[in-house]
């Protein structure tokens, strides 16, 4: 692992990144995960159940956000615990005039900092701030990394 446990301190920023989801990303995640709830691919159904439009799977946002942590740690198996609450839906529009597979998509911003350090267990807790246009979409998003 490139990161040295000893040098880490609570409050350290591990980095920030952005990931975007377009309609094709949602369909791909539906197939990969087996979650075919139509709110993630059908505009008519999504609005009928009171959503502003088609929304990303919360689990897609959660799954993509942790990449900041695994890239930083250099090892995806170092994440021994990962949790979040889903607070706000990530709306993914079908932009007119653009191919749905090439649309830029909805940008999700992810920032991580160290929220806790356990010297005995040799773990750090990375707290993720995950937002769309300044609004938090995940809260209490925390990944525990073992060194």
């Amino acid at each position, binding site marked *: 692992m490139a990161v040295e446990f000893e040098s880490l301190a609570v409050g350290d920023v591990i980095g920030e990144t952005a990931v975007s989801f377009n309609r094709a990303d949602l369909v791909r*995640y539906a197939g990969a995960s087996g979650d075919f709830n139509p709110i993630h691919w059908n505009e008519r159904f999504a609005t009928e159940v009171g959503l502003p439009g088609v929304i990303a799977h919360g689990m897609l946002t959660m799954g993509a956000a942790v990449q900041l942590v695994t890239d930083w740690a250099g090892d995806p198996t170092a994440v021994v615990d990962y949790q979040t609450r*889903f607070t706000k839906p990530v709306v993914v529009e079908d932009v007119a005039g653009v191919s749905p597979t090439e649309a830029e998509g909805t940008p999700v911003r992810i920032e991580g900092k160290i929220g806790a350090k356990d010297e005995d267990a040799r773990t750090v807790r990375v707290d993720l701030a995950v937002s769309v246009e300044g609004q938090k979409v995940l809260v209490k998003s925390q990944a525990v990394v073992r060194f």
Partner: protein
Amino acid sequence: MSINPELAGRVYPAGEPYLVGREKIREFAAAVKANHPAHFDPAVAQELGYADVVAPPTFAVIVAQRADAQLIADPASGIDFSRVVHADQRFTHHRPIVAGEALTAELHVDQVRAMGGGAMITTRAEISTTSGERVATTVSSLLVRGED
């Protein structure tokens, strides 16, 4: 129909094993935009000490949601799937999930709380190999919205 408060404490035994496929791990990793070569290349995973490609941190949701489906499909639960919202999710990994394994999930209904006209149901899936080795524990809360 309302949520049955007596669901709390119920345990749904492990169903048919879920066989973790190499292609499914690759497909899932690509879908969550994970790019570590250990998800794609068995040789890289073997250098890290695993028999085959390793799953990304949220892969266990596939197994957990299959277990949750048992509860949602149980007529005794009173859950209308079209009113379910995923409220929170947690994964605790006892060790990584590796392609080629057969996993089972025992589902525990840990808590049922009335929320307005609906309910918040917290479930826990204890995921292990068919030979009994513990692999992961997932906890999720499902908010079932009340009737409008």
